[in-house]
């Protein structure tokens, strides 16, 4: 262990670390512009300079590159250090007079007056420094006639962080230094927009003075990554926690956009993770789990409101789907619970259109069952959050459920408007000055008996529930049936509502049909109980209608062997007869139907029994 003192504070640490690290750990602040967790120390900005006394000698050294030594006495804010830092700020400010960061630093270290007013030479980086004026926060005219460059010269302090990060960490190498001395600058090769740049934004995010203009490194605008859970109302990073209540609540990496999966570089998140929990080498795995029962709870999807083009979803920015509004009113949502339209305004009037993609022969004929209640909830929350005028356009209010009708009554008392009628269209075509700049909802008010035009700022589409897009694949996988609308079919609507036609496969939730959360939870409980019955019993009952071979009559033709879909029929070479494994037989009877010698029977469905049935049904 090594003992040293920083500003008189005794510190013991292991060898090999730098003075900057140790000082930061000890809570001593050393200003620096060019240190980054993912980059090795470089010492380019020199702000971290400290005064070191060791073995009777004193020297000035950058703390980021200085390894700790036995008996060091370090001063981070001595008069000598402060003087040097002041000069450094002055010099950088002379180069980059517009940089906010440097101006702030200058204020902090108390630069009274910048003495480097002008740099000689025609092509000097600074023509109009006036840094001293800037310190006094006076506006500065932007220098004209700058040559094409990709990094704003007025802000670049030539620390090289972007170059090192792009090259060493991101493994791209789109940026580099050019020129020497006064003409030194950061740019792309030949000052052309780089074709290697992947617009990851690392250079601009690491730049201490915010001098990188990303669009000049590569002309393509950076592509935002829309957050799936926020329905595109906010963006996310390539590493993200899917949503606040995610289980397990751990971040995931989006392989499609993570730089590491493109170039093998970056891994900045790994460097930052204290727990060392991030592993870029993880692969997707398909796990096979053997189970005896399956509960299908694959849920639903909401109707895509783009299908109803007359409601203007995706055309007018003021038209939202109900799920989007759900995120807007949510305290953990993209706006922190503040209802803001896409243009930043707070809506003064909101129209909620019910039955979008429900009870409609053009889309889905069924009632989605939950929309009335969630529309009422959104109406209540929107009123609470914005105080706006809220209109509900409904066909029928369907509020069956405990406390639901009372909630509807409460909203009526709160002053939410209810207009009975299916909305014809949403348009921005104004007919009166009142309607200018608003969305107009055209609807036949069937209670008042005339067509109304209602201008609103925001339209909410209460989208209905649909089967999942891949419901048919899931159905085939588990040998279930679907109703005509595509929801999974229960064995019997009253007697076996959570069972399917396949034993051991149960249904829960909206995959079986639209239902709300209380109903889903109740049904899931029933499905779990049904599954437990099978698990608890520990054995399964065999089908009673298995097939068997009449050995005396079997001719050994083997024609039944390939027919069995469960490979329950084997051929006994010794006896030259077919044999049926009754544990494997599911009792379809295909073998019995196709045995040429009639030597396979099926219990409960014997040939004789069927013949008698035929006799029976034809006798009259």
């Amino acid at each position, binding site marked *: 262990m090594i003992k040293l003192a920083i500003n008189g504070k005794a510190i013991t640490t292991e060898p090999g670390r730098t003075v900057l690290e140790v000082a930061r750990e000890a809570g001593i602040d050393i200003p620096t512009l060019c240190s980054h967790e993912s980059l090795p120390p470089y010492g380019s900005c020199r702000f971290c300079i400290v005064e070191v006394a060791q073995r009777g000698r004193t020297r000035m050294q950058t703390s980021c590159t200085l390894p700790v030594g036995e008996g060091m006495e370090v001063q981070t804010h001595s008069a000598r250090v402060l003087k040097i830092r002041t000069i450094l700020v002055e010099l950088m400010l002379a180069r980059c007079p517009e940089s906010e960061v440097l101006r702030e630093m200058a204020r902090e270290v108390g630069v009274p007056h910048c003495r480097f007013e002008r740099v000689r030479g025609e092509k000097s980086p600074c023509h109009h420094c006036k840094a001293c004026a800037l310190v006094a926060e006076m506006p500065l005219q932007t220098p004209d006639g700058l040559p094409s460059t990709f990094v704003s010269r007025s802000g670049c302090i030539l620390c090289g962080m972007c170059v090192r990060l792009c090259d060493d960490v991101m493994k791209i190498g789109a940026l580099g230094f050019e020129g020497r001395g006064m003409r030194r600058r950061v740019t792309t090769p030949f000052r052309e927009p780089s074709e290697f740049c992947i617009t990851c934004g690392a250079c601009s995010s690491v730049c201490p003075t915010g001098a990188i203009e990303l669009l000049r490194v590569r002309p393509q605008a950076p592509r935002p990554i829309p957050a799936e859970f926020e329905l595109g109302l906010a963006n996310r990073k390539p590493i993200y926690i899917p949503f606040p209540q995610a289980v397990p609540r751990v971040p995931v990496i989006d392989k499609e956009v993570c730089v590491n999966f493109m170039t093998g570089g970056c891994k900045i998140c790994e460097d930052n993770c204290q727990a060392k929990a991030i592993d870029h080498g993880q692969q997707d795995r398909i796990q096979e789990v053997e189970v005896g029962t399956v509960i299908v709870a694959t849920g639903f999807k909401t109707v895509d409101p783009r299908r109803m083009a007359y409601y203007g979803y995706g055309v007018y920015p003021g038209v939202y789907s109900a799920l989007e509004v759900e995120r807007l009113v949510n305290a953990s949502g993209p706006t922190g619970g503040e209802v803001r339209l896409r243009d930043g305004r707070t809506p003064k009037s909101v129209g909620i259109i019910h039955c979008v993609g429900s009870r409609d022969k053009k889309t889905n004929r069924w009632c989605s069952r939950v929309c009335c209640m969630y529309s009422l909830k959104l109406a209540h929350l929107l009123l609470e959050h914005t105080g706006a005028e809220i209109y509900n356009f409904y066909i029928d209010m369907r509020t069956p459920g405990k406390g639901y009708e009372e909630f509807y009554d409460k909203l009526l008392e709160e002053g939410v408007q209810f207009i009975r009628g299916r909305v014809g269209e949403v348009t921005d075509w104004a007919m009166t000055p009142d309607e200018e700049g608003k969305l107009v909802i055209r609807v036949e008010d069937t209670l008042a008996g005339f067509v109304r035009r209602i201008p609103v700022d925001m339209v909410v589409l209460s989208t209905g529930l649909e089967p999942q897009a891949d419901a048919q694949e899931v159905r085939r996988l588990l040998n279930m049936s679907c109703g005509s609308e595509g929801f999974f079919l229960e064995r019997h609507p009253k007697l076996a509502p959570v069972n399917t036609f396949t034993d051991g496969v149960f249904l829960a939730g909206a995959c079986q049909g639209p239902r709300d959360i209380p109903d889903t939870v109740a049904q899931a409980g029933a499905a779990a109980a049904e599954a437990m019955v099978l698990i608890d019993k520990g054995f399964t009952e065999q089908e009673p209608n298995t097939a068997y071979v009449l050995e005396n009559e079997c001719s050994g033709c083997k024609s039944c062997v390939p027919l069995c879909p469960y490979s329950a029929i084997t051929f006994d070479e010794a006896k030259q007869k077919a044999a049926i494994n009754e544990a494997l037989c599911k009792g379809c009877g295909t073998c019995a139907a196709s045995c040429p010698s009639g030597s396979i029977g099926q219990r409960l469905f014997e040939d004789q029994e069927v013949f008698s049935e035929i006799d029976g*049904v034809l006798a009259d």
Partner: protein
Amino acid sequence: MNAIPSPASTTPPWRPRIVAFFCNWCTYTAADLAGVSRLKYASNVRVIRLMCSGRVDPQFIVEALVKGADGVLIGGCHPGDCHYVEGNYKMLRRFRMLQRLLQSMGIEPERVRLEWISAAEGEKVKRVVNDLTEAVRKLGPLDLPQKAADWDKELAELEEKIQAGEAAPAAA
């Protein structure tokens, strides 16, 4: 079927009799659904439940026709949806062969029909049954028992003739 015996009518009008073999998982359930949904369809169909359309032995179909049915309907799951993986395909195979046999027996192919009806298609049960009933009604009675009896008679007469022919030279 819905016969309230009325002494006045001496010969009731002919009504087609159709035997249906429905698979337990799809078509039989669909017929059940049709009933639960209160769909009305022709009452000429008498349903026999089997576990799978793959259990339908061609003998069953022939037997039904021989015993006096005017048509036969076989209902199975849609291809790819069979509860027993592929029983319906096996039925399809047999059905194609049986159709040729029936044609050679002089039975119109429209009388015997194979349909894929899923558990959700109660409406389709109604449609298919009504269609088939109508088609069979147009074709008229099959009356295979009578035909069989006629054929038997013909054969017996032939036999008699042959025997008489054999006996005559012997007598001569």
